[in-house]
């Protein structure tokens, strides 16, 4: 009595959900404080033994969890208690809480099995409904296993309301407990023949999900789906069936041919945009070999594209994107609409249009389309601007720049991209500038020009996103300095004061490139100082030009500029920058005195010229693209034993190490010693190979000869129309090219020149710019297991049908008669004896069919019934 009285009191004074909501809207405590106090109150109330009080508390907690993210996992047990109430109101609140908050890890999950079973068997269909909703959301392996019999029973319920929910639950049950397929699949399939549109809608929805996961298993049901496709007038149902056939047609092309006609009929007949769109998508994604269907679909796409409705426009572009790979004509046919969509205010529409434009790109129109896109990039918001830039970079670099014929144009384009204010793809442009330099020898002169234009502009140094591009430009200017027309200005650009805005790592590259330029200029200068009496007339002319290019005054001025620019960096805080600056300054200290004093100009053996020749050798190595699998191709030489202990090195290198340890040897002497030794060795090798001495090219050839095993050899002959070999040019050839270029400084570019040689590796040559493909990671084991379960169930289905026939099931018999009549096209009544005989014949045929199915299943092949083929 006392306990009961207390309970009534609690219930009467408890704040309701409505009170909570009102309080929430009027609260002055601040949202989080209000929530905390409300949860505390709920924690007290929910402990009440009275289910009315408990359920109200649980209801309030569900509200806070659903709309304000409050954790309610601590109330799991209370939810179990509430759901066991006999009152529908309480039960509904309990199930909502469970559905909302339980998951596979909820510890009290086991406690609800019996309650759910009890409710699934309830005479009250709404209680059954609550339990099914709950099972469809939180069903675990154990729950699915234990409740499969109930689901099986409900799949045959006479109440449409219950049956359609049971059908919806099947998806979850199959997913969690594969053996359920054996029990329920046959009954599920039977529902495909219902005349109730709601039941049909539910079951087709389930098969749509199953077909998406495993189309192979649903293939034998194609006749049933075909019947729905042809007979149904319910758009919800048709959309799902179309989606099923989109999956099945991909694995069985003959099926695609069969369903094309009814799908086209739906496209022509219906006014429902959603159904038209689904037909279109099915055709362009799965029936793309059917020309008539595709043409009709493209005509419908056109109708979508010209609509004012932004949804239809977006979906039209989306469908064009799907059809583009196999039917590019469809995109070209709507080119104006696509280009116009680039100006749409909807980012989604613009993005689809961009993808379509990129689909149209080929080597004939890449220049035009890129021009259009750059204009859009300049006037777009930063996000879309970078999408455009990325798309162009991706399309042009695909498969080693396959669609690019005019690399001079493309390099200019990269330079323009770099200057677009919103450009943030600096690293991609950086990579391509260097990559093209390594792959396309003929493009290097233009590459140097573009790089020079970028470096010379001090305004670009302040843009953080441009730093990677400037890094590439600097590297290019140093590496391919022989193509430079303005080495002096290049050095000035590389050492200008505003380079302080660069991060140290890029600044170091700037310094190193200046070093390369300096060495190149000095090398050319010293070469020009050599006697001309022994040269041919042509060489004499060449020498004369070089003298004009690199005079003593210009060289001295260049050295002074570098010395002045790098001097302050000797004390730079970053050791990499500091070291490189000191390296260059050290080199200058070796050569400067001789140059300044103009001593022994006619002496080929001056120290400065020897040091410079040495440095030229250091920088002479040719770069090329590196295969991702290059490292694995290097074989360990015969006889080479790799030991952990490096102590043996001392024995081998002892002679060389001694001079380094000697304090008495000056820096200059060390350099002299090393150079002298190298020179002697080179001379010996040159003599033995009968090559002319003092030739950088011969040194390079020797190096390649000795280390040939480390160089990659192309596995296929790559020649252009001129039959030019793809081998890299020797340094001597490069010198000749320089000479020729010097002879004709104002020569116009040949606009009809053939595509230059592009080095491409056979394997391991992947573009870094390619975006990672989206991959759906699925549990292969689970899917495979479910697949086997479904296939097994199909055999059971056939067996079951036959059993029903022999049992003389009146309903089944009636259906069989109707089917038989339709198939055989008999319209006359039959005598009883003939019916009996015919029935027996059908049984025999069915028996054979079942046997064939078993054989097919064993060989993992599914036979499509003749009805569809």
């Amino acid at each position: 009595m006392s306990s009961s009285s207390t309970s009534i009191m609690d219930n009467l004074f408890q704040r309701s959900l409505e009170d909570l909501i009102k309080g929430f809207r009027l609260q002055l405590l601040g949202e989080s404080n209000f929530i905390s106090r409300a949860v505390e109150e709920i924690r007290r109330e929910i402990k009440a033994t009275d289910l009315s009080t408990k359920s109200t508390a649980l209801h309030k907690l569900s509200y806070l969890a659903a709309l304000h993210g409050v954790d309610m996992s601590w109330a799991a047990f209370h939810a179990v208690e509430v759901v066991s109430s006999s009152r529908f109101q309480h039960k509904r609140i309990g199930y909502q809480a469970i559905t909302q908050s339980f998951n596979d890890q909820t510890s009290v999950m086991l406690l609800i099995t019996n309650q759910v079973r009890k409710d699934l068997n309830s005479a009250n269909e709404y209680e059954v409904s609550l339990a099914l909703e709950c099972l469809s959301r939180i069903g675990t392996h154990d729950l699915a296993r234990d409740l499969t019999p109930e689901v099986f029973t409900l799949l045959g319920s006479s109440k449409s309301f219950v049956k359609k929910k049971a059908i919806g639950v099947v998806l979850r049950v199959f997913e969690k407990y594969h053996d359920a397929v054996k029990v329920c699949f046959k009954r599920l399939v039977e529902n495909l023949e219902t005349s109730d549109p709601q039941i049909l809608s539910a079951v087709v929805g389930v098969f749509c999900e199953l077909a998406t996961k495993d189309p192979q298993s649903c293939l034998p049901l194609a006749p049933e789906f075909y019947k729905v496709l042809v007979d149904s007038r319910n758009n919800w149902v048709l959309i799902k069936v179309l989606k099923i056939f989109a999956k099945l047609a991909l694995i069985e092309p003959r099926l695609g041919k069969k369903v094309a006609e009814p799908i086209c009929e739906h496209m022509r007949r219906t006014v429902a945009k959603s159904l038209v769109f689904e037909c279109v998508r099915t055709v362009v994604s799965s029936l793309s070999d059917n020309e008539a269907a595709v043409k009709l679909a493209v005509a419908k796409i056109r109708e979508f594209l010209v609509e004012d409705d932004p949804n239809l426009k977006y979906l039209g572009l989306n469908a064009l994107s799907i059809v583009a790979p196999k039917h590019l004509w469809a995109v070209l046919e709507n080119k104006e609409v696509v280009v116009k969509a680039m100006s749409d205010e909807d980012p989604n529409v613009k993005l689809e249009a961009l993808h379509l434009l990129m689909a149209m790109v080929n080597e004939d129109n890449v220049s035009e389309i890129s021009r259009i896109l750059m204009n859009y990039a300049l006037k777009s918001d930063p996000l879309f601007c970078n999408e455009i830039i990325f798309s162009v970079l991706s399309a042009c670099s695909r498969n080693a720049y396959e669609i690019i014929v005019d690399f001079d144009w493309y390099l200019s384009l990269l330079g323009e991209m770099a200057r677009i204010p919103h450009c943030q793809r600096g690293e991609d442009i950086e990579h391509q500038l260097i990559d093209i330099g390594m792959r396309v020898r003929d493009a290097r002169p233009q590459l140097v020009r573009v790089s020079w234009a970028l470096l010379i502009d001090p305004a670009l140094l302040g843009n953080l996103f441009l730093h990677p591009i400037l890094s590439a430009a600097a590297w290019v200017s140093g590496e391919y300095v022989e193509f430079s027309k303005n080495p002096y200005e290049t050095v000035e650009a590389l050492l200008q004061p505003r380079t302080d805005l660069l991060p140290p790592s890029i600044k170091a590259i700037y310094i190193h490139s200046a070093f390369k330029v300096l060495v190149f200029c000095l090398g050319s200068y010293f070469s020009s100082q050599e006697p001309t009496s022994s040269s041919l007339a042509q060489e004499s002319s060449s020498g004369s030009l070089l003298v004009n290019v690199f005079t003593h005054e210009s060289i001295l001025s260049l050295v002074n500029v570098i010395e002045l620019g790098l001097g302050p960096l000797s004390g730079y805080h970053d050791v990499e920058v500091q070291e490189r600056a000191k390296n260059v300054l050290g080199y200058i200290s070796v050569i400067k005195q001789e140059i300044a004093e103009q001593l022994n100009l006619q002496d080929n053996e001056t120290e400065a010229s020897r040091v410079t020749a040495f440095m030229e050798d250091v920088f002479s190595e040719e770069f090329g693209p590196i295969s991702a699998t290059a490292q694995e191709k290097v074989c360990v030489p015969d006889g080479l034993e790799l030991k952990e202990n490096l102590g043996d090195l001392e024995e081998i290198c002892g002679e060389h190490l001694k001079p380094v340890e000697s304090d008495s040897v000056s820096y200059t002497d060390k350099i002299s010693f090393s150079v002298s030794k190298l020179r002697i060795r080179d001379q010996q090798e040159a003599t033995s190979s009968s090559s002319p001495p003092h030739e950088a090219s011969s040194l390079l050839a020797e190096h390649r000869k000795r280390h040939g095993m480390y160089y990659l050899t192309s596995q296929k002959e790559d020649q252009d129309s001129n039959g030019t070999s793809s081998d890299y040019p020797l340094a001597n050839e490069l010198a000749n090219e320089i000479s020729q270029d010097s002879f004709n400084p104002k020569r116009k570019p040949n606009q009809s020149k053939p595509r230059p040689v592009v080095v491409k590796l056979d394997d391991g040559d992947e573009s870094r710019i390619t975006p990672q493909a989206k991959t759906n990671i699925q549990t292969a084991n689970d899917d495979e297991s479910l697949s086997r379960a479904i296939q097994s169930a199909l055999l059971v289905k056939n067996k079951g049908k036959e059993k029903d026939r022999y049992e003389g099931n009146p309903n089944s018999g009636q259906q069989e008669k109707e089917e038989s009549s339709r198939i055989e096209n008999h319209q006359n009544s039959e005598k009883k004896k003939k019916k009996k005989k015919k029935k027996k014949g059908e049984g025999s045929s069915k028996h054979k069919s079942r046997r064939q199915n078993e054989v097919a299943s064993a060989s993992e092949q599914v036979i499509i019934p003749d009805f569809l083929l």
Partner: protein
Amino acid sequence: MIHFVLLVSRQGKVRLTKWYSPYAQKERSKVIRELSGVILNRGPKLCNFVEWRGYKVVYKRYASLYFCMCIDQEDNELEVLEIIHHYVEILDRYFGSVCELDLIFNFHKAYYILDELLIAGELQESSKKTVARIISAQDQLVEVAKEEASSISNIIAQATNR
């Protein structure tokens, strides 16, 4: 399939969330915050479809509320728009010219109605009349129970007095 349903006001207040795919509590909050940001910033004349995390989100604004449904890439966007419209019409019929306040104070009923519309992320009832009938029947079940409880309460009160 539909992975979740989200109702957000124009000010970003959450009015309803329903999850058909598994999402941990923290993930749910993150999803709501992220999607609210994306959708509330889109203008009224843009299309009603947004690509998001490899899925698509179909949304539609009615008065001050945005109805959002997250679907797979290959699902039919126009179909989902029709489902949203279907849901709104049912709410409108049930509440009589439904407005945001109705959903605020009857959030549980919005859930009950949604549960009759979708199960396991699939449409289960396309007839507005059927849904209305089912909801009314369940409401009556609750009302009858309340009357009985009230009677029992009176009897107990009398007994206590005596």
